[in-house]
């Protein structure tokens, strides 16, 4: 694989809007990405994921009958999920805090707000490729670590169950 390892990247676009699918496909093509599959809702996307190996998913949030949140939760936690670790970028025009938190808690890897630009899309993909996130499995969640950064000066309470143990080990 060379500089254009991108040629071999397999991407699934999950979007009910045909214009947005076309735009995303054209943008991905412009970066040299050729292996692109499409689905118009979460249910169809699950079928595609079972049939084809995908390296990355770009998913809309609001779709019917299965929306992007349910799709992400199913990919992460269903017993028959074809790839619970696949990176998911949620692309949405809904920027309200509760929607962002719902996407994070459903296990999405990155969140991208419409209107999208080439820069915003490609920098999210580059981030995922270059700095893959650790995953967390606990009673109520499976997905990318929701902590995005470590604040050395953080003086608040430890909130993760095993933080105290980690502290003792150190």
């Amino acid at each position, binding site marked *: 694989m060379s500089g254009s390892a*991108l040629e071999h990247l397999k991407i699934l676009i999950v979007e009910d809007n045909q214009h947005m699918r076309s735009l995303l496909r054209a943008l991905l093509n412009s970066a040299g990405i050729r292996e692109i599959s499409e689905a118009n809702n979460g249910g169809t996307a699950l079928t595609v994921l079972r049939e084809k190996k995908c390296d990355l998913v770009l998913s809309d949030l609001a779709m019917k009958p299965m929306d992007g949140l349910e799709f992400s939760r199913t990919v992460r936690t269903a017993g028959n999920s074809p790839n619970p670790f696949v990176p998911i970028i949620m692309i949405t025009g*809904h920027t309200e805090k509760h929607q962002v938190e719902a996407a994070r808690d459903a296990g999405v890897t990155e969140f991208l707000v419409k209107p999208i*630009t080439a820069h915003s899309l*490609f920098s999210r993909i580059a981030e995922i*490729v270059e700095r893959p996130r650790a995953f967390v499995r606990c009673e109520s969640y499976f997905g990318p670590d929701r902590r995005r950064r470590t604040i050395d000066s953080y003086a608040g309470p430890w909130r993760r169950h095993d933080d105290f143990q980690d502290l003792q080990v150190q």
Partner: protein
Amino acid sequence: MSKPNIKAQMIPPDAYPQMVSKAHAAVMARTLRSNVTAVTATRVIEDNGEMLRDAVRGYVGELEEAGMDFAILSDKAHEIRGFAETAGMLSTGRIADGLCRYFDEAEQSGVRPDAAVVALHVSAITRTARDTDALSQMNDMVARELAQLAGRKLAESRKAAKNS
């Protein structure tokens, strides 16, 4: 707060399958962030401009037809906001953004959106989408004044809800 029974298990990136090796990842990231890729992608967006503008005009038509059905209006406003700027329809995008924020804040505050505020936004979106829609001073002023009006109406509605 009770602690969960099962401890959180951390799975580092090295412990699950990655899409590419670290060496290839660096090359891919460089390509994705390169100027060449940015220029090519910008051209692609320009080439798709007419398709995107048609899409926005289609949503604007659906917005007009929605009457005072706030659920449809909110849905279409979000679609317009998602596309208009990419299509180069900056004023339309800005006013649609104002309408989306108004709907979102009204919902958060538990107040019903004001029909006149919504109608004014719809009218301005329709007009700017039919214009050539450069971000003219006039359109910019309309967007600003609508945002102020929406803010004022929200504050009034919240106050009324609190006092009732």
